[in-house]
């Protein structure tokens, strides 16, 4: 399983892996917002956490369709399914999700503080948004795996994956943004939405790979 993790990370960072595509898309979304909203710095600061979260969510959905499709096209997926007695398919999917998060989503979390400055957010808001992204983005990877597995046989399933995954990812967005806001708006408590966000991630970490494994098992033809 370590071998699988290393392979996925290598593939992600090598040429054509598309690890940076998400980060660049994130940059494009966040840097376009101030131009659209105008020079009202207070308004920007208020929008900040929401924009960071929407940017990260969309960027996270971007590379999902290739999660299993690349392996299916070159036959690796067949071998992973044949090997299901030594490595449970759920575990294989889980490791692939973790690798996808490390390569495609962790860079977004790392870049978030910098992009927060573009949105004129103060230090506490930036810290809270980054923390919620760190805790919430794994959920996107796990839900995304289920969507990617369902659409694995479709040659241009990219948009379909996003449409399938987005509704399930909305709670993550809601609690991520509300926790970020609660950190700066005094009367609102930070901890409850943050803990629900963490619970969502843990819940998705179980449900996502399980659903993806079932979908992959029956998508083989």
């Amino acid at each position, binding site marked *: 399983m370590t071998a699988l993790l290393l*392979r996925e990370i*290598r593939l992600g960072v090598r040429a*054509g892996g598309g690890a940076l595509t998400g980060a660049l898309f994130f940059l494009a979304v966040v840097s376009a917002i101030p131009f659209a909203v105008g020079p009202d710095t207070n308004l920007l600061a208020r929008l900040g956490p929401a924009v960071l979260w929407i940017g990260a969510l969309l960027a996270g959905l971007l590379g999902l369709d290739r999660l299993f499709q690349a392996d299916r096209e070159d036959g690796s997926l*067949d071998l992973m399914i*044949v090997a299901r007695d030594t490595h449970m398919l759920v575990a294989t999917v889980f490791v692939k999700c973790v690798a996808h998060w490390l390569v495609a989503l962790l860079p977004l979390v790392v870049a978030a503080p910098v992009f927060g400055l573009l949105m004129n957010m103060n230090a506490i808001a930036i810290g809270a948004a980054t923390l919620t992204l760190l805790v919430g983005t794994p959920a996107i990877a796990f839900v995304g795996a289920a969507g990617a597995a369902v659409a694995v046989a479709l040659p241009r399933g990219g948009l379909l994956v996003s449409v399938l995954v987005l509704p399930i990812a909305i709670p993550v967005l809601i609690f991520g943004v509300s926790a970020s806001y609660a950190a700066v708006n005094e009367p609102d408590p930070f901890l409850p939405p943050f803990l629900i966000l963490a619970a969502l991630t843990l819940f998705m970490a179980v449900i996502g790979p399980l659903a993806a494994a079932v979908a992959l098992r029956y998508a083989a033809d």
Partner: protein
Amino acid sequence: MLRCNEAAIRLSMWGAMQLAVVDLAGERGGEPIFTGISFLLVAHGSIVVTGPNGAGKSTLLRVLAGLLPTAGGSIAWEGGGEEWPTLAGSTHYLGHSNAMKPALTVAENLGFWRDFHGSHRASVVEALDKVGLSGIGHLPFGYLSTGQKRRASIARLLVSRRPLWLLDEPTSGLDRASEARFAALMEEHLASGGMIVAATHLPLGLSGAKTLEMSGRRSHGSHREDFDALASAAGGF
């Protein structure tokens, strides 16, 4: 001499294994492809599945590998003991595609499958040596020619131990010399107690292989005489 001993040890470990397929039917997308396939494969045995395009050779192999559900009949894997309890876990599947990433080097690709499959046999360097690809392990897989890619993929069978090899057109893209080398590798695998089911329309150079003829739409590849003969032979084990 050492080789003989090794083979003898393997034989005693793998000797009782058998794959019994009875009245197997396969379908794709609800369309029946073949019915009534029966054969018995014991250690050291090999079956070459032949037939025209679309006869269901690949479907048969995918059903055996557990990638497709059976539409009827049964597949039984017996005598694997604790090491090889299930059919899928005892199988190397070599499909049409090579299951290698073009962006990774040949050695990285092979090393990954070696670690992923476990049951280490040959090292990556040894395996590449055996398929005649020594010295190119550092090249990205995408740089290789079609034949070299196939050979690298064959090397995957050598890095981990699995008693049953399911080979789908294994020699497509190989030149004469490589075909001969691959035939020798298959003989070696059989000599150590392995089994092979190969779908092909090219002669593989396997001596003593049974032939299973699949004859086009709704194949009835009955193999009853062999089944009975092999069954009685297996009883003697």
